[in-house]
């Protein structure tokens, strides 16, 4: 029984980490309809900035997180204006080509600027303690990530479903021409949505760095994982993404505990099974 | 004459909502029937039930004496039940010649051939060309569909249906969206349809309905409220109520 609880805790924590890192991609893919393979690259940029701020400049963790988000968005603005704007509404394959190109470039630049070694983001002492849950210990950082995930899920849900901007955003995506006719400035909506997605990517990159450490190849290494969880959840749906992350996290964790040799099989067989049962993703809407 | 197409007591509900209720409709070869009804009457659902895109909760669809209720859309097409689309569904990158060739080959079960192009099949080319000529679009045979005018695309839509040599043809608003100048050609094409073909046309344009139909069926709120001659339809009280009522509703909403 204790083992079951223990796996449950690990699974939940892992699922939340996946969620925090991937949710930004759900925004770009589901709401902006851009297959953004460069999502990991932006997460990585966030991680590098935070690492530089916290480790080399010795700034506080919270400050480093803020800097990472702001810095990544700042870097992303010209990228959005010059490159992404050209692929909105284009075919998926074109988007794949462009965003893979961007990813390659960012990897190359990161490798050149920061070198190929791993970069850590020193967390405050409070987050480095193991915390006892009675039957086992977990690191405080995991609990922190779970809290972050919950906050992001609620905040984003509120932003998209409840604010005026969220309404405009959904309108712009569903029918850009109609939204424009109603006075919505779609290019502003897109730019803001992109900034939100990139900010989330950076945030995820930083708080998830304990599990997915920052190095130049980060952008490609985890690309598939991000793509899979978002698509399984149904791109653009926050509850869907959350459900997919928790479900896949649980399957992955359980599989790795019970039969670590076949961990990879469990994960991808589960992916196939889920998509087989829900061909549009867990929370997919009819197209 | 025996019915070639026979819908019996068809019923469909979505959740608790009854969208098609006990609908029966029978047609013989050569029939020209118009199906009309106000918006939201369930025409689209009816078409989908007949073509097999959705399955009914009760009732049956018979085609040439065979029960096709449980068959999928492609099976029904292969048995001679063909539809056209209200909004053209064509292959934008292909030419009319290719469209009709594909339809002919599909009809003959030759569409899976992997060697030799359709152009090397004289019978297909001749039949296709004859069909395009009949509809007056042969001169566009080798233009991409994305490059030809909408009225001509509607004609091609018709050609596609005909190339399948249907026994029963469902025309879903064949003149919808076509500029005035082109409707005459489409009407002519419809008038020239083979005389042994049973045609069910879903249409809003009453002028067209009166010129085309020998029989009019009115669908309202999922039920058939009228089935009779074009002359009688305008005099029918329930029909008037269904239409005028819905117009009144529509106005109050707007």
């Amino acid at each position, binding site marked *: 029984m204790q083992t079951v609880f223990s796996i449950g805790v*690990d699974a939940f924590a892992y699922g939340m980490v996946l969620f925090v890192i991937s949710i930004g991609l759900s925004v770009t893919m589901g709401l902006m309809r851009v297959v953004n393979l460069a999502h990991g690259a932006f997460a990585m940029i966030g991680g590098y900035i935070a690492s530089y701020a916290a480790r080399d400049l010795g700034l506080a963790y919270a400050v480093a997180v803020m800097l990472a988000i702001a810095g990544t968005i700042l870097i992303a603005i010209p990228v959005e204006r010059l490159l992404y704007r050209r692929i909105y509404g284009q075919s998926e394959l074109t988007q794949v080509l462009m965003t893979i190109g961007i990813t390659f470039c960012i990897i190359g630049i990161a490798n050149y600027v920061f070198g190929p070694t791993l970069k850590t983001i020193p967390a405050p002492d409070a987050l480095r303690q193991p915390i006892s849950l009675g039957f086992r210990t977990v690191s405080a950082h995991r609990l922190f990530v779970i809290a972050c995930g919950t906050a992001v899920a609620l905040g984003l849900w509120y932003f998209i479903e409840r604010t005026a901007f969220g309404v405009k955003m959904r309108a712009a995506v569903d029918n850009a021409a109609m939204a424009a006719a109603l006075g919505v400035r779609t290019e502003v909506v897109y730019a803001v949505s992109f900034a939100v997605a990139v900010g989330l990517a950076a945030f995820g990159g930083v708080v998830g760095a304990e599990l997915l450490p920052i190095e130049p190849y980060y952008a490609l290494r985890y690309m598939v994982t991000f793509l899979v969880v978002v698509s399984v959840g149904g791109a653009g749906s926050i509850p869907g993404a959350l459900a997919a992350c928790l479900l896949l996290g649980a399957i*992955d964790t359980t599989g790795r505990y019970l039969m670590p040799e076949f961990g990879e099989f469990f994960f991808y067989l589960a992916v196939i099974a889920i998509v087989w049962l829900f061909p549009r993703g867990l929370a997919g809407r009819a197209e | 004459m025996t019915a070639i197409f026979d819908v019996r007591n068809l019923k469909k509900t979505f959740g608790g909502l009854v969208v098609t209720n006990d609908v029966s409709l029978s047609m013989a070869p050569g029939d020209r029937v118009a199906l009309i009804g106000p918006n939201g009457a369930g025409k689209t659902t009816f078409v989908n039930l007949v073509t097999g895109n959705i399955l009914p909760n009760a009732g049956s669809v018979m085609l040439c004496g065979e029960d096709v209720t449980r068959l999928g859309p492609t099976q029904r097409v292969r048995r001679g039940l063909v539809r056209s689309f209200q909004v053209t569904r064509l292959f934008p990158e292909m030419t009319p010649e290719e469209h009709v060739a594909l339809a002919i080959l599909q009809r003959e079960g030759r569409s899976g051939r992997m060697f030799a192009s359709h152009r090397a099949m004289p019978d297909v080319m001749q039949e296709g060309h004859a069909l395009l000529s009949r509809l007056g679009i042969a001169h566009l045979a080798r233009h991409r569909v994305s490059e030809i005018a909408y009225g001509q695309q509607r004609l091609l839509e018709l050609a596609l249906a005909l190339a399948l040599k249907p026994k029963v043809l469902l025309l879903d608003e064949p003149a919808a969206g076509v500029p005035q100048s082109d409707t005459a050609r489409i009407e002519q094409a419809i008038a020239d349809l083979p005389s042994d073909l049973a045609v069910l046309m879903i249409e809003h344009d009453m002028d067209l309905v009166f010129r085309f139909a020998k029989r009019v069926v009115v669908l309202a709120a999922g039920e058939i409220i009228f089935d009779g001659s074009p002359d009688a339809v305008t005099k029918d009280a329930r029909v008037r109520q269904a239409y005028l009522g819905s117009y009144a509703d529509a106005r109050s909403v707007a």
Partner: protein
Amino acid sequence: MKKLAIAALAAALLGGVAHADIIKVGVVGPFSGPFALQGKNFKAGIDAYMALNGNSVGGDTIEIIYRDVPTADPAQSKALSQELVVKEGVQYLAGFYFTPDAMAATPLLEQANVPMVVMNAATSAIVTKSPYVVRTSFTTWQTSTPIAKVAFDGGTKKVISVVSDYGPGVDAEAAFKTGFEAAGGEIVEAIRIPLQTNDFSPIMQRIKDSGAEGVFAFLPSGPTTLGFVKAFNENGLKEGGIKFFAPGDLTQESDLPALGEAALGLTTTFHYAVSHDSAENKKFVEAAAKAIGNPAELSFPAVGAYDGMHVIYKMIDATGGEQDAAKAVDAVKGLAWESPRGPVTIDAESRHITQNIYLREVARADDGTYYNKEIQTFENQGDPGLAVVK
């Protein structure tokens, strides 16, 4: 007079041909992609050697041509090796970080009359694939066998083995198991985990549940190692007194800054530590650190490359710059020298390097950086893995 002049000219020309050749060495390694760091170390080791020993041997200038195979990709490795041989005309093939990449190129050697100096790839069998293969790195068997003895002698009798499910991991598991069971210990469980593992918490739980007193681990460097070691600490295994044993790949110097405190006290066995205390090593580290730019990035592939260059220089010297693979390889059989890692010999029979293996512990230096502190030496270790191949 005229005759003499012609003869002199001819001699000069001939001499010129014989003594001012450019001898090309083709180096295949991961210079981009996830293992770029290891390729960078190859280059640093080679640059260091050439900086210290000049870029010519007997009048022949050495030119290095690099070819990039980012991840294990035998087909690409073979195509590039072939291209190096037939197009660039290299006399020596070297490098090879991944075993399959080295294996793929071995069939070329005899036909091309080219020796191969393996600077990293660590599967025992490579040297058996062609008589023209010489290895200056190590094998996983070589570095993993001593730790089994260390573990047993240290009082750990029950161990769980956790390795990544790929060639080197399987090798490490086999080496440790053989050594540990021969000593009288018990492997309570042997787990192979997929290479792509992000979250190690379930594995840690599994280790706890196994009742083992220690864990033997082998994982690829970088994120995987970091994740594993962190999870080991965070899940309370370190506190719980579970011992950690691994070959030194896990605590390679380039990962230590990231591992940081988490790695403190980890014991590993390996053939080289950057901190190794010898004059030879000081010289090497200085030159290699300069070559690589950031000294923190320096780790073991550099020394494999450095010694590989030493072997190649000897080969060139022995053949007088002529292309003669058999003679070149013969010349270095039994070659012994003082490497930065300590005394080494190329075993005449296997053409693999015989060397000291050191037991090390991760320690913190006075300046706050972490390093592998050598605490015990196993002298003149050959490759026990070769016995298994045969």
